[in-house]
């Protein structure tokens, strides 16, 4: 694996780490299986790309993209809390609606950003000024994004509102009995979760040079693999460690993809990519913890 491919995987790991943090809020904190992310990720990309192409400031565009994601999450939560639609169905409804909305936002399925000024342009200029390659600086930039979001989230989940949100997810009846507005907590948490995912979508589009309406397909799968993979690696007992696990899980996933792309020498071909990725993620989770060897010693029992 070349350095560019390795650093590229780290970069994608941090971007999708933000998705994993969003899914952590909905899936783990609120216990809300949320498929909205397959729509809110391209929505963040769509809003930021459409505004940037229209000549708006890229930072403002990205901020509005985050608000768009928050609105999407809010709608899902509202369908669930106010209209009593089952959470899974509520998120599916928002997700499929967002496909059309994203097409409307962009006016076309694909908006190219290759020649536009984006939030990453100042960092590219900095790289040029420092005399380092773009691909070396970008992982640092996305590391900074991910770390800032992680610590803000840690702080929030330790605050009074954050604790109320966690209580809602653990036991909504008990939370309500203790005077927590559990419905409001779900509305707030889902808005936060999808705002984060939209943020990831916005910076991903700006990093890869285009927003495409199909780029949301499977975001929930990658995000869940990151959250659960990270948990398997770190077995977190605290919030700070759990959020760290999300980001590490995402990096692990993208390293596995990158490695699978490099597995062509053993006779694996292009069509084997996803199979190899799945096997590598499974191996990475099992091998280092020596659970694998235990499995052999104890036989079928474990």
């Amino acid at each position, binding site marked *: *694996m070349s350095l*560019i491919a390795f650093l590229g995987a780290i970069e994608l790991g941090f971007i999708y780490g933000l998705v994993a943090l969003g899914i952590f809020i909905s899936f783990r904190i609120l216990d809300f299986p949320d498929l909205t992310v397959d729509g809110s990720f391209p929505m963040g990309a769509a809003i930021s790309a459409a505004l940037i192409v229209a000549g708006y400031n890229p930072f403002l565009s990205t901020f509005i993209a985050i608000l768009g994601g928050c609105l999407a999450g809010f709608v899902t939560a509202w369908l669930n809390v106010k209209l009593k639609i089952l959470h899974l169905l509520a998120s599916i409804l928002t997700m499929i609606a967002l496909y059309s909305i994203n097409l409307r936002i962009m006016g076309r399925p694909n908006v190219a950003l290759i020649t536009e000024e984006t939030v990453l342009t100042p960092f590219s200029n900095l790289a040029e000024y420092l005399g380092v390659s773009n691909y070396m600086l970008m992982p640092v930039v996305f590391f900074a994004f991910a770390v800032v979001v992680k610590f803000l989230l840690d702080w929030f989940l330790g605050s009074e509102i954050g604790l109320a949100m966690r209580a809602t997810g653990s036991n909504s009846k008990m939370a309500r009995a203790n005077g927590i507005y559990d419905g409001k907590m779900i509305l707030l948490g889902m808005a936060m979760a999808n705002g984060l995912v939209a943020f990831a979508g916005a910076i991903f589009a700006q990093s*890869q040079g285009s927003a*495409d309406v199909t780029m949301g397909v499977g975001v929930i799968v990658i995000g869940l693999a990151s959250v659960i993979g990270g948990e398997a690696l770190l077995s977190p007992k605290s919030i700070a460690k759990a959020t760290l696990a999300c980001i590490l899980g995402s990096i692990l996933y993208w390293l596995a993809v990158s490695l699978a792309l490099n597995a062509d020498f053993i006779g694996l071909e292009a*069509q084997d*990519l996803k199979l190899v990725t799945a096997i590598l993620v499974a191996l990475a989770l099992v091998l280092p913890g020596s659970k694998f060897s235990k499995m052999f010693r104890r036989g079928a029992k474990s």
Partner: protein
Amino acid sequence: MKKALGLFKATVSSLVVASAVILSHTAFAADKFVAVTAIVEHPALDAVHKGLVDELAKLGFKSGVNLKIQHQTAQGDIPTTVQIANKFIGSEPDVIVGISTPSAQAIVAKAPKSQAVVFTAVTDPIAAKLVSNLKKPGGNVTGTSDMSPIAKHLELIKQAKPDTKKVGVIFNPGEANSVSLIEMLEKEAPALGLEIVKAGANNSGAVLSSARSLVGKADVIYVPTDNTIVSAFEAVVKVGIDGQIPVFAADTDSVKRGAAAALGFNYYDVGRQTGQIVAKILNGANPGDIAVEYPTILELFVNPASAAKMGLVLPASLISSAKEVIK
């Protein structure tokens, strides 16, 4: 926490060691190196790849002899296109070929100005911001477009069914290429006294109901080079027979699957055309000096039996001028 981090380090380092092993294996004695990527496995895109490899071999760059060809597809994932672009750029091939708009965009966004990039199967390279000028692209990027000769397609429909007023078009509004084609159709139709009636289908499962929505609203159905719709072409043919609406296609392969007629190029030839451009670059040409090319070989395929089932008798002149008549 410490132990957990150690565990993660162990995982990462095992991945890194594995990659080092792989790296040592990729050292390969070859004169030239071309890396090819596509967004997804798909008959048309695979045909482009095959045409590219065959043409390069014909021009003296034989895969495995004096040319190393690497091929990756993103299996439909946009983020994976980025990781493939990173991988290719890191291995510094002589030329990177991006098949389809998303794959080409990821490469152009990530590649340094010194890296030659050739795109293909991109309908609108200007809208995709791959190049700013078709005649003289400048920079490090050129390629071939698969824009259909829309005006010729509409003329064919007029010729086959002269009383046509309304042309129904089924397309996936999520495919950038198709949206460019629709814009062209709407621009060209009025000159021939035609009106375009659109029907969208977001996935191949929705094609049948989308085609049915055109019954009574259109005189013919035209299927552009849209990946989603072509995947479910048989559904359109079924509606054409049930509703007695002749179905025309943009690609000749679909005529075998039941379209009444198509005047098109085939993707294998697009791949060969791309191969010629790649060979020029391997021989030292500068990508920025090579104009973006459009498909040049157009062939008429007709299927009179299928047309009859859809209530259309193809004119004898049309059948006699066809390159291939499907029985």
